């Protein structure tokens, strides 16, 4: 693994409190937001975050479960993917 940064995407119908609820889960797991962008694309709320973690003692599976669970409550789709998945595909 070349970095311990994750891309977090949140896609779904816009409503009040999405950013607050999602970032709360991140704070609980000590996940730091490095960069964030948010738009409404084709009527869909789309938030993309670059997040950094201290890889020691970080339980990715538990964090993903908490994030996806929170997303389900909010009616949005949340994905937590290692940054390399995008770097490998789009950068040579």
């Amino acid at each position, binding site marked *: 693994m070349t970095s311990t940064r994750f*891309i977090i995407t949140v896609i779904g119908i816009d409503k009040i409190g999405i950013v607050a609820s999602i970032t709360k889960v991140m704070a609980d797991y000590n996940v730091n937001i490095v960069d964030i962008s948010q738009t409404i694309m084709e009527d869909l709320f*789309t938030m993309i975050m670059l997040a950094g973690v201290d890889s020691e003692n970080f339980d*990715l599976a538990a964090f993903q479960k908490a994030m996806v669970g929170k997303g389900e409550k909010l009616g949005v789709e949340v994905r937590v993917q290692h940054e390399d998945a*995008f770097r*490998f*595909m789009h950068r040579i």
Partner: protein
Amino acid sequence: MLIHPEEILETIHMIKAENFDIRTVTMGINLRDCCHSDIDVLNENIYNKITGYAKELVRTTEEVQNLYGIPITNKRIAVTPIAIVAESCDTEDYVSIAKTLDRAADDVGIDFIGGFSALVHKGMTPGYLKLINSIPQALANTKKVCSSVNVATTKAGINMDAVAMMGHIVKKTAEATKDADGIGCAKLVIFANAPEDNPFMAGAFHGIGEPDCVINVGVSGPGVVNSTVRELKDPDLGEISEAIKKTAFKITRMGEMVGREVSRRLNVDFGVLDLSLAPTPEIGDSVAAILEAMGLETCGTHGTTAALALLNDAVKKGGSMASSYVGGLSGAFIPVSEDAGMIRAVELGALSLEKLEAMTSVCSVGLDMIAIPGDTSAATISAIIADEMAIGMINKKTTAVRLIPAPGKKVGDSVEFGGLLGRAPVMKVSEFSSEEFIARGGRIPAPIQALTN
């Protein structure tokens, strides 16, 4: 942000809407050190070797899948051709070895295990003969075991005695699994120029030039290529090729990344990435749909071979730059039962066995997952195999045959296998005899390598 949001959403769209996945992570395991004259000891050695190397395969693969958020559909194992491993064994029948492979596969939680195989392109040893005769019962008594027999190479020619024998073996395998429409035949491949590092089933085996243990990865993504071609606005064929190349590059990069991470975590060599476009029965995840996106009314009409040649070449060009080690089959697959577009084309009467045969001369891998009438003679099946082997031998490429003579079924019926194996409409074969030609036996000599017209 280092990566543009549009690029991030593109990747997510591929996974979510276009069925992009890593089709298989296949662990190759050498079993040559398991040999023993006592079959019980041999079986125990095989079981221990496989479960020793592969015990963490499924868990590790799932961890990598979750890390990158990219589905890895199958986890598989390929082993040394069993005929080689069992040759020194004092037994007449290798069915118990197939059962051992099945048990090991179940216990480590993988989907399929390949390598109940023989390499008889020039001739047959007693071990190869025993293995081939064991195939029908081996496939009828196991769920996850896959079998392959290489009967031809460009350097050796075609072993027509083996081709004649395989016609009977295919029939017997169908008969032995007739309660499930001959599904045993879906796990049996007859090859020309079989690759030693192919991660795809049913033809995977761990070749004799391979290390003790290796990870090979097969990518997929007909759905992604299909969408890419359809999004182009009035393109010429050069532009279509360019778009496919770029997409193949992106898909392949994911496979490379996943393969390297899995092999790093398991501390096993990374072998090759197989660039094949493997369709699934999902709507849109279809090689036929890509050909139709290029402007054919239906797959199988005139122009299909040319469109497929363009697709196959563009995938290789894009993919080969994305990976350090490309191998295996690496070409577009055209398995009829596994591709909703192919099934539709057959049912429309647009796609025949003869057209499929022509298509296999420009793509991977052969006459694949095709149901034919249950009463087709062994000689006719052998003759279909011989034609396909000739295409492979002359064109210096891998070709294969995976036919299902569906017991009790006629043209117009269809056979339902379920899952990734899909549904196969029964296709027409020639009613004229090839009996005398196949009965001659012997070898078709290796072809001349110059005078290439």
